[in-house]
Structure formats: C-alpha cells, structure tokens
C-alpha cells in the first residue's frame, strides 16, 4: 500500500539541514549519508550525495528526474558482475 499523501514524503530531518548548508556554501563536496530510506526532494537537485550500500559510498548526483525516489534506489547493495557491453558509452554530466 502506498504511503498516505497527507503525511508528506518521508525524510530524515538532519539531511534537509545538511543539504541546505551545502547548497549555501556552494562548495564542491560529496555529502556521505547512510539514510537510504529518505525521499529525494526538489531542493536536493544539483547536490552530490555519497549513499552507503553496506560496502562503500556510491556517488549520486541528484537530477530532477530522481525527485520522489529514495536514495537507496541509486546505490544497489548487490552488484551483478556481468560482462560490460564493449560498445557502451559514458557521458559526462554537467
């Protein structure tokens, strides 16, 4: 069952405070977090979080398409080591 709308999105409160500080400082930094359960809010767009996957912190550069998802969705805890596509390309984000 989906979460009731009247409650609003769940987020660990301290993340909001930290994100606000980071946005004001305009420094190039990765905010390391353990809170995989928190929802990505619009005010996080443009910030980079290091989301813990139980092993290491995976960088998550938040874009507007991620709003509404949870941080944990972008840091898988189990990695499939299949064969990488030989002609696959990487694109540098802004």
């Amino acid at each position, binding site marked *: 069952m989906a979460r009731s709308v009247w409650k609003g999105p769940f987020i660990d*409160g301290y993340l909001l405070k930290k994100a606000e500080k980071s946005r004001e400082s305009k420094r190039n930094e990765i905010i*390391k977090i353990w809170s995989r359960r928190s929802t990505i809010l619009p005010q996080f767009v443009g910030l980079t979080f290091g989301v813990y996957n139980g092993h290491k912190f*995976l*960088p998550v*550069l938040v874009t507007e398409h991620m709003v509404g998802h949870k941080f944990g*969705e972008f840091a898988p805890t189990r990695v499939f080591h299949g064969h990488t596509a030989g*002609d696959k390309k*990487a694109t540098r984000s802004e």
Partner: protein
Amino acid sequence: MTQDRRILVGVVAGAHGVKGELKIKSFTANPRAVASYGPLGDRTGMRSFRLKLRGAVRGLLIARIDGVEDRDQAEALKGLELYVARDVLPKPKRGEWYLADLVGLAAITTDGTPIGRVKAMHNFGAGDIVEIERADAPALMLPFSKRIVPEVDVAAGRIVVDPPAEVEVKAEDAAAELAGPDQPGAAA
C-alpha cells in the same frame, strides 16, 4: 592507443537446430548490433566470421556463419569469443567516450599529482560513475561530471580529476544536534 585494440562483442553459446545455426550471446549495448560491425574475429585475429542474424530466443541471438552447414560444425564453435577491432566502432559524439577507452586511463589531479588508474565505469541510474583504483588506499568512486572530471584525454591516456571534499552526516550526530543541550542524549 586505441587503434590496435580488439573488443569482445559476443560469444557463441551453442548450436541451434540441425541446420548449422548458432546461439550468440551478445555483449553490445544493443544486442543486435553485434552483426553490424562487419566481419568479427576470434581471439587471435587469425579467423574471420560474418554473422547473419536469423532471430532471437530466450535472450540469445540466432545467427548463421558462412561455412557452418550442420549441427556438428556449429557445436564445434561453442565458446568461441567474437572480437571486433576498436577502430571499427563509430566515433562517439562530443562528450561521449567508449567505456573500453576510459578503463585503464591514468587519473591525475588538477595540479598533476597522480591518483591511480580508472578501474571501471558504473551506472546505477544516477549518472556515470568512475572508479579509480589507488595503490595505497581504497578505490575512489566519483561522479563522471564536468565539475569533477574536467578533462578526458584518451589520446594522452589520462583523465584530470578534481576530487570533491567529503562531509559525513551521521544520524546520531544529527539527533544530538536536534535534541538540544538540555535533552537527554544530547552532546555535552
């Protein structure tokens, strides 16, 4: 650097039927593209194969190779790795790089200090991530963005990295801060 390299694009998974058709496991971004790069070679580059796709079944492609006419010949090719020369791949667009070109590049900081080598590229849905292997420290995972990787020079064999600062947000520190000085459990 990239001209004499060969890239693995598929492997023969087995025979299909009795007319010499083969099951091919493709390692290209678009599976059907395996047949679009012209003749493929084996590991040594001595033999050449031209694939003709016939269809797909259970995630594998069905293809024919000239000169393979029956099941015995097809089964003899099981496990054959199919390679393509790196220079056959189309030139990537501006701002794009083949993962095969990026892996192995030296990583240096903006002031020229070496950090390590690019071990792998990942994408878990939040943009590309570059993993840099360091000799004396754990691997470094960084977003593949213009801000953090301002320069990629495949010809020179290096990427320039501007490693960002890292700040930790621990739940217990934040809870103590939020609780205030007169609350139990607050930091003294």
